[in-house]
């Protein structure tokens, strides 16, 4: 308030300043006034005016003490205003003042107004009601009492106050809220935590120490939660039987983890023994009896340990007793029983029971054992008559039944044995009365009897048949064991009999067929089986050897050796002697006859055909004919010789006649020779003329030769030309072939192009399909978009799908179009290729045509050359013909010449011939001479014979 108010200067500026100050003071809620240094009121604010009950205008100019009364003496030493003005400093004074008849406690805040010259020109005093303060103090006292009583919700009532006081009260309330709020929250949290309703951590923002509170509370909540979790974990694990689970206490700070650690320890302390017990019980249950527990336990755990140990003792004891009983039973000591008195309670029941079991089992067992013993020794006891219970009765019945069966069986066996001894081989026991396999033995004996008697019967029958000569076939049935031996022996007997019969048959047949060398093979017989056959062999030998000797002698006779005789060394007896003598006699007779005939023949050889065999020779039978024949020979020959003599005489006479004729012929041929010489001379003349002709012929021949050679060279040239044209033709052929192959290749290319076209059409069809597909897909996309849009929000996702499908459709369509484009390009290209191929084809055709023409040309050349050749040949032929003609002519001339010569020659020949004729005649004469000579000789010879 250092407004420059210069001692109530009422100038305009001052007035303005005062007005300004007035405005300022009016703004202040508390009563306020300003005075000059004489305590005249300069301005009063509205608040004070209201308190006083006057208007501000009424107050100005009056002394301030007039406006209101204060407790202190106005303008006295206590007056704050005065003091302020004196001391030129702010002064505050608590006092009482009376406003509107009401005395109320106030505070005067006075401030001196100092002008620009530093002089105090006045003061401003603000009156603040202390009643508020007192009330505030009262309120505060109330609040304090409430707080001490713990009524934390108590608050001051700001409605009782106005202005700053109200503000103060409100702020006090807010301060209380600020303190008590967190406190309440803390109280509430602590209450909830104490009741176990763990709240969420505090998330609101607090400031300063309250934040500390909040953090601590949160930490507490954390710890409580953590602990609860751990405890919960341990509890659940224990419930689920996971006895190893322990909580981790390291995450706790301070002694927070003590409880959890304690629980861990508790678990350890309990679970330890539990595990040991569990393990022991497990082992005992598995039969692995452990050692007694020796560790020390405390309290109830010790009880458990003792009980487990006791259990182990009992189990061991029982096992020992049971083992004892079992071993004794196994070793057969059936009297041994266990002592049950050492068991307590019902522990011994089992062992006692086993004892009783043994008793009740062994009694009947002993009886049964005794009975079985007797039965086994063959002393069949009487059936058991005592009464037993349950299965023992069964055993008794079974033993009795066994006795019955044994008796029955013995009877049956006796029956069978006796029958067999008495030879009643058909008797068999009835096995129907046996049950189960009891009858098996008797049945077996039946079967045994069958199996023995069967083969026996068969053997008897076979031996019977063999003895009667009715050889049965070999036994083919299968027998077992020794029966098989019998069967084999029987079969072997049959074989031997067969073999012997066969051998005898063979020998008989051979003898009947005259195969005298056939002998039976005795080696295949065993033992003395072969004796008979060997004997037959010997018999045959004895019979056959004389026959063989006789055959030898006959053979000798057949070879005309009649000197042979049967060997004396042959041991012949009986009828065989007669046989030998007979044969020998044959030899004698024949020898004699031969000698006689020989003698006669010698006589004839000596030309004595008069000799005859007379009856002095001892010739009989058929030989007589020989004798007669020999004699006849002599007779005939004599006669013949006589005839010959006669003829020779006649021959001599004829030879004479022939000689005379030959002479006549000789003279005739001399005549012929003369004429021929004449002819020869004429022929010589003709020969000369012919020679001349011949020379002219030769000249012509030479000319013809020249022509021939020229035609030859022409021929050669034309041949060359032919060759070349043929070569050309061949080349042209090749080119033609090449053309043909080009044509073929282009045809193939055409085919390929056609194929390509067909393929492209196919592709085109497929593209059409794709396009169709794309259209359909497009349609689908549209419909999908429609549906998606109609579905609104829900269809948004679907709308995405629809748009994807649409783009897919578009891509497909684009691809299809691409492919279509490519196909049309390809088609254009293939068209171009086809056109090019067609062009090539045309070229090839043209080339081919040209080639064909060329070929024709060549062929024509060849033809022409051929023609030339032919013509040349013709020329050659003609000249040859000419030459031939000339030759022929020459030849003819030669012929003529020859003829002439030959005539000449022939005439000479004729001359020669006639000479020859002469010679021949001479020869004939000679021959005749010879004949005569021969005649003479023959005569001389025949004269020798005595006829």
């Amino acid at each position, binding site marked *: 308030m250092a407004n420059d108010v210069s001692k109530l200067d009422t100038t305009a500026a001052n007035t303005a300043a005062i007005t300004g100050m007035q405005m300022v003071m009016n703004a202040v809620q508390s009563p306020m006034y300003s005075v000059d240094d004489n305590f005249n009121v300069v301005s009063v604010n509205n608040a004070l005016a209201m308190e006083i009950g006057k208007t501000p205008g009424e107050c100005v100019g009056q002394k301030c003490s007039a406006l209101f009364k204060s407790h202190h003496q106005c303008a006295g030493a206590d007056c704050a205003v005065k003091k302020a003005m004196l001391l030129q400093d702010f002064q505050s004074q608590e006092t009482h003042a009376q406003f509107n008849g009401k005395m109320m406690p106030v505070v005067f805040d006075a401030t001196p107004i100092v002008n620009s010259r530093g002089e105090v020109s006045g003061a401003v005093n603000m009156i603040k009601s202390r009643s508020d303060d007192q009330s505030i103090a009262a309120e505060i006292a109330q609040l304090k009492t409430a707080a001490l009583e713990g009524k934390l919700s108590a608050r001051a009532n700001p409605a009782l106050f106005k202005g700053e006081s109200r503000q103060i009260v409100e702020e006090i309330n807010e301060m209380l809220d600020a303190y008590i709020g967190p406190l309440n929250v803390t109280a509430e949290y602590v209450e909830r935590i104490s009741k176990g309703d763990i709240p969420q951590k505090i998330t609101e923002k607090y400031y300063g120490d309250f934040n500390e509170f909040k953090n601590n509370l949160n930490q507490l909540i954390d710890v409580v939660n953590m602990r609860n979790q751990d405890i919960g974990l341990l509890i659940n694990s224990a419930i689920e039987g996971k006895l190893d689970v322990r909580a981790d206490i390291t995450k706790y700070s301070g002694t927070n983890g003590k409880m959890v650690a304690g629980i861990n320890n508790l678990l350890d302390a309990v679970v330890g023994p539990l595990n040991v017990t569990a393990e022991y019980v497990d082992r005992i249950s598995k039969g692995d009896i452990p050692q007694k527990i020796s560790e020390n336990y405390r309290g109830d755990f010790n009880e458990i340990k003792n009980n487990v140990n006791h259990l182990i003792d009992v189990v061991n004891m029982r096992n020992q007793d049971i083992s004892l009983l079992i071993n004794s039973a196994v070793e057969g000591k059936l009297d041994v029983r266990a002592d049950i008195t050492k068991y307590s309670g019902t522990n011994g029941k089992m062992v006692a029971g086993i004892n009783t079991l043994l008793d009740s089992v062994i009694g009947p067992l002993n009886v049964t054992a005794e009975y079985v013993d007797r039965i086994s020794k063959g002393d069949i006891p009487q059936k058991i008559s005592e009464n037993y219970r349950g299965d023992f009765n069964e055993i008794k019945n079974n033993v009795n039944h066994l006795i019955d069966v044994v008796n029955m069986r013995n009877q049956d066996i006796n029956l069978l044995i006796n029958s067999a001894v008495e030879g009643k081989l058909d008797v068999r026991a009835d096995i129907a009365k046996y049950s189960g396999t009891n009858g098996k033995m008797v049945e077996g004996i039946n079967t045994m009897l069958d199996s023995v008697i069967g083969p026996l019967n068969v053997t008897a029958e076979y031996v019977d048949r063999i003895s009667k000569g009715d050889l049965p076939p070999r036994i083919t049935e299968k027998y077992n064991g020794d029966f098989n031996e019998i069967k084999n022996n029987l079969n072997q007997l049959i074989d031997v009999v067969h073999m012997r019969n066969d051998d005898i048959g063979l020998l008989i047949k051979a003898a009947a067929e005259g195969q005298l060398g056939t002998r039976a093979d005795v080696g295949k017989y065993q033992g003395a089986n072969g004796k008979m056959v060997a004997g037959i062999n010997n018999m045959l030998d004895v019979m056959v050897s004389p026959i063989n000797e006789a055959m030898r002698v006959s053979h000798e006779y057949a070879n005309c050796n009649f000197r042979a005789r049967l060997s004396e060394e042959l041991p012949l007896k009986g009828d065989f002697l007669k046989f030998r003598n007979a044969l020998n006699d044959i030899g004698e007779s024949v020898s004699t006859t031969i000698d006689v005939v020989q003698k006669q023949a010698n006589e004839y050889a000596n030309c004595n055909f008069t000799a005859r065999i007379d009856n002095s020779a001892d010739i009989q039978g058929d030989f007589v004919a020989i004798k007669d024949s020999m004699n006849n020979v002599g007779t005939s020959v004599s006669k013949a010789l006589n005839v010959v003599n006669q003829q020779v005489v006649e021959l001599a006479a004829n030879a004479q006649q022939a000689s005379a004729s030959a002479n006549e012929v000789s003279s005739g041929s001399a005549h012929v020779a003369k004429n021929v010489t004449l002819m020869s001379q004429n022929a010589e003349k003709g020969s000369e003329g012919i020679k001349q002709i011949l020379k002219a012929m030769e000249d012509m021949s030479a000319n013809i030769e020249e022509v021939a050679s020229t035609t030859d060279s022409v021929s050669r040239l034309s041949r060359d030309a032919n060759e070349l044209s043929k070569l050309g033709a061949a080349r042209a052929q090749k080119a033609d072939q090449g053309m043909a192959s080009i044509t073929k290749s282009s045809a193939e290319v055409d085919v390929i192009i056609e194929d390509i076209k067909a393929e492209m059409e196919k592709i085109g069809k497929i593209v059409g399909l794709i396009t169709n597909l794309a259209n359909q897909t497009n349609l689908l996309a549209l419909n999908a978009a429609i549906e998606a*849009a*109609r579905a609104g929000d829900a269809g948004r996702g679907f709308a995405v799908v629809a748009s994807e499908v649409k783009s897919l459709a578009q891509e497909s369509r684009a691809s299809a179009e691409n492919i279509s484009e490519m196909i049309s390009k390809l088609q254009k290209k293939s068209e171009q290729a086809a056109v090019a191929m067609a062009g090539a084809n045309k070229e090839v055709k043209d080339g081919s045509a040209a080639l064909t023409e060329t070929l024709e040309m060549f062929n024509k050349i060849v033809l022409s050359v051929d023609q030339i050749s032919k013509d040349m040949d013709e020329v050659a032929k003609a000249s040859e013909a000419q030459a031939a003609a000339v030759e022929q002519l020459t030849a003819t001339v030669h012929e003529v010449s020859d003829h002439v010569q030959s005539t000449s020659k022939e005439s000479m020949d004729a001359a020669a011939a006639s000479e020859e004729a002469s010679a021949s005649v001479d020869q004939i004469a000679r021959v005749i001479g010879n004949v005569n000579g021969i005649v003479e000789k023959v005569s001389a010879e025949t004269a020798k014979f005595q006829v």
Partner: protein
Amino acid sequence: MATASAARAAAPRPQESRRSSISDTIQVVEFLLGREHFAVDLFDVKEVVEFTRITELPSSPSHIRGIIDLRGEITTIIDIKKQINILKESDRDEMNSRIIVLDNTITKSKIGILVDDVLAVSTFPGSEVDITSASTTDDALIIGIIRKKIKVKDSQNTELIIWIDIRKLLRDSGNSSES
């Protein structure tokens, strides 16, 4: 028919409010008639199907092409080009045309409209729709013109799509469900 439609034209129409204010976006089905693009409100459309053989009905107006069997339901096919007198023939084969089947809410019987091709289902902002220039009266067939910006080789072209009121079309042809 004319009198009936006139009578109907005199009756109050609930679409008026729709005409005057366009919401933020519109969803339409774009289709092709001749060479021009048209569009109808998406929610009036049930589905789009391919062209199938239409069985003609005797003594029916020229714009009614006939009927088809659409999954067991007899659907009347309206040739929209005849009805709104578009003479320009499409250069597409009729086998490639499409039938827009209308939703049940706007017709009492099943109706489909024959169009040359269905192009897309699109959403346009209301700003791109011009309602004032095309419609001469409130009763016109054309609701507005949609400006569709399409990119053609680095330059942006604007295509104009004629948004028509399918209900009006049906009313004119006497097939509406409204009385």
